């Protein structure tokens, strides 16, 4: 096979997963660079930023808008769902590939196209779109308001294409999990990470329809002058907000669930424990998914919706804390009675629990309508959702990469470098966002490119907090170079790993490392659930799913 057939136009789910992983990480690097630039502007306003230059108001807006869009749509989604979903689903259910391998390839190609369009939008006249990642009209609908006639349309086009890519991927995931499982694998024998990815795909498919419709309406408003969101012609700008957040809130759980799944696999393996209450996890996941469709308007408490409606959404939003808290408790309970090995992957998985708890608790401030009047659109919100998204999209992803790296490339990553990388990620992450809770509570609003014109906010004390956050961003980014070096060096030079280096139970560890096209020499047969660790009376403390008695 030529290089092109093998690595570019491959239909092998592992290659496509790897393409998604590397593209996603590349986009993540671009998104991180953006955050570096605008954090520098906030800490040292008006000064030239090294490796960028002077940041103007419009560039600042374009940077924050695209940082948000990239990190959610082009980093979290492709890495968590597409990369891990593609790589893991066939391997963990004992199949040779996805059910629709060509749709899978098409999905990646559309995704890549959308990423290219987004990058191009920075280099057109007027620059990148700067109307926030939520793209509220009328600002996003009219060039005379946003002053980025090309940027806003290209941004919207990229987002719409990206959704199409993930719809195709989602169909594939769901069908594959339902139809291609190894002989003997019952629903309750499926590893929890696959359930999570598939439930997330279902959530995505059920919620994205309104937003695709909305995106096309908004494109029409921009390009051919319709008035769907123009109040002077009978439209309603708030309609967009409903369409956006009806998708936007389930989206949070779309990325959360795969991350929780990855953490479950890593935690059970390295604490040598059965997952506490598998069925409870599964049912609370479904409950969270269903409930997540009834909370979207908490983003719009003060956006001019009927104030009575806020009460209903306060109830549903605060109540969603129940299934989420229950899931986290189950995870914590899994550690009880374990024998915990502190590998790099495990450190990241435990850090996920510790930090996501902060994100969860601070969410209640925002879900409680009365408190949200003050916190809405402040840095408190920023700190809150980064305490959910960074654990999800960065910490859990690192846990997954360190854990499955031996399977992906047949080699280990360096554990010492990995642990340095862990502390260099975990500590600065907290010193970025803990200060932002305080600046937010002191009244710092989002998307403000200089506080010079607000005497109450331009105080030295608040500025110190902003500088702490910015310095932490720089430190965190520096430590990621260590990861990349470790990643690429280990890919070729790392210590060789066998089939099952972590003594885990699930089926991917039955295949050779790295698995060839077609995955398994002999298709495995499944006899038990995925988490039978430390079963009394057995010599080994693990019991692979395919091992007969």
């Amino acid at each position: 096979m030529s290089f092109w057939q093998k690595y570019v136009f491959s239909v092998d789910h592992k290659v496509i997963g790897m393409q998604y992983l590397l593209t996603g990480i590349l986009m993540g690097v671009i998104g991180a660079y953006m955050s570096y630039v605008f954090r520098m502007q906030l800490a040292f306003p008006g000064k030239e930023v090294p490796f960028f230059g002077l940041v103007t108001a419009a560039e600042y807006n374009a940077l924050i808008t695209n940082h948000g869009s990239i990190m959610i749509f082009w980093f979290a989604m492709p890495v968590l769902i597409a990369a891990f979903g593609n790589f893991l689903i066939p391997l963990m259910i004992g199949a040779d590939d996805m059910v629709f391998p060509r749709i899978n390839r098409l999905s990646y190609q559309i995704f890549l196209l959308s990423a290219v369009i987004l990058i191009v939008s920075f280099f057109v006249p007027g620059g990148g779109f700067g109307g926030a990642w939520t793209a509220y009209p009328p600002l996003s609908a009219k060039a005379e308001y946003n002053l980025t006639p090309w940027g806003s349309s290209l941004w919207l086009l990229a987002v719409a294409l990206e959704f199409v890519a993930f719809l195709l991927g989602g169909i594939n995931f769901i069908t594959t999990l339902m139809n291609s499982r190894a002989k003997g694998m019952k629903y309750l024998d499926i590893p929890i990470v696959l359930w999570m990815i598939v439930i997330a795909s279902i959530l995505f498919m059920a919620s994205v329809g309104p937003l695709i419709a909305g995106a096309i309406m908004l494109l029409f408003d921009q390009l051919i002058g319709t008035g769907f969101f123009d109040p002077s012609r009978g439209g309603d700008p708030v309609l967009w907000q409903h369409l956006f957040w009806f998708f936007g809130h389930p989206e949070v759980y779309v990325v959360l669930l795969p991350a929780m799944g990855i953490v479950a696999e890593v935690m059970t393996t390295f604490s040598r424990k059965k997952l506490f209450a598998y069925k409870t996890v599964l049912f609370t996941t479904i409950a969270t998914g269903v409930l997540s469709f009834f909370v979207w308007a908490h983003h719009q408490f003060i956006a001019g919706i009927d104030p009575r409606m806020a009460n209903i959404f306060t109830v549903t939003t605060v109540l969603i804390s129940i299934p989420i808290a229950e899931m986290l408790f189950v995870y914590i309970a899994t550690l009880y009675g374990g024998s915990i090995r502190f590998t790099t992957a495990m450190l990241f998985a435990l850090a996920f629990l510790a930090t996501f708890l902060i994100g969860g608790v601070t969410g209640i401030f925002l879900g409680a309508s009365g408190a949200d009047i003050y916190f809405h659109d402040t840095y408190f919100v920023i700190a809150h959702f980064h305490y959910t998204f960074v654990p999800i999209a960065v910490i859990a992803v690192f846990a997954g990469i360190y854990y499955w790296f031996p399977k992906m490339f047949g080699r280990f990553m360096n554990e010492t470098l990995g642990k340095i990388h862990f502390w260099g990620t975990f500590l600065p992450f907290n010193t970025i966002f803990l200060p932002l809770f305080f600046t937010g509570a002191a009244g710092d609003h989002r998307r403000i490119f200089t506080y010079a014109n607000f005497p109450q906010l331009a105080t030295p004390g608040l500025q110190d907090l902003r500088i702490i956050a910015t310095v932490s961003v720089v430190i965190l980014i520096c430590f990621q170079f260590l990861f990349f070096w470790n990643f690429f060096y280990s890919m070729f030079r790392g210590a060789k790993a066998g089939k099952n280096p972590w003594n885990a139970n699930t089926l991917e560890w039955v295949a050779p490392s790295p698995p060839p096209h077609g995955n398994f020499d002999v298709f495995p047969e499944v006899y038990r659930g995925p988490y039978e660790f430390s079963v009394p009376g057995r010599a080994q403390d693990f019991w692979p799913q395919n091992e007969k008695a």
Partner: protein
Amino acid sequence: MLDFMSLLRESASTFARDIDHLIAWVAILGGFWWLIAEGVLVWLIVKFRHKEGVRAQYITGEKKEEMKWIHWPHNLILLCDVAIIIMAINVWYNVKQKLPPADDTIRVIGQQWSWRFVHSGKDGILGTPDDVETVEDLHVQVGKTYHFKLETTDVLHNFSVPVFRLKQDSIPGRVITGWFKPTMTGTFDIQCAEMCGIGHGIMMGRIHVQTPEEYDQWLSTQQKVAQSH
């Protein structure tokens, strides 16, 4: 303890205190569970770290006596949630749904990228010739209940006065009514809290909360300027 929010930012309106109390209660109830969860997590990590020769236990978590460790906290959290919901809705009702009778009304108009305010002037009625229009500077009297009529000429804006704990989006084509009652004199920031274009970050305003005497004095200087035109 309950007033820690006012250490971060002055509370200068009647409902600022209510919102601060709600925030404090959420912090107490949420913080309690957060501390417990983090504490248990750290305790388990330390206690059950790998030791040579000690094997992990086999716990399915599906027996009743095991599940009670999940169910009890979860029932108690439900109780806390209900308490938070009741407090939140109560505060929300007082701030956004109830409209106490007004002593005076102001028009607040957002545009890219400035705030315009119409004060009712000496007669206290909007829409009369003695209205005083200003840009960026809003003057109000301490201790009076104000209604505001929020409008925008172009895109979405958000009239936000952090010291009042007040925030409301403005929407083109609509006039949104809200209220506030200042309790503290001084000059405070008004911000725009909804992305409104390249000038969003510098769309500033100032609210001057004044005693009736100061306010009257300001009003008379404004009317002189108006007459000179």
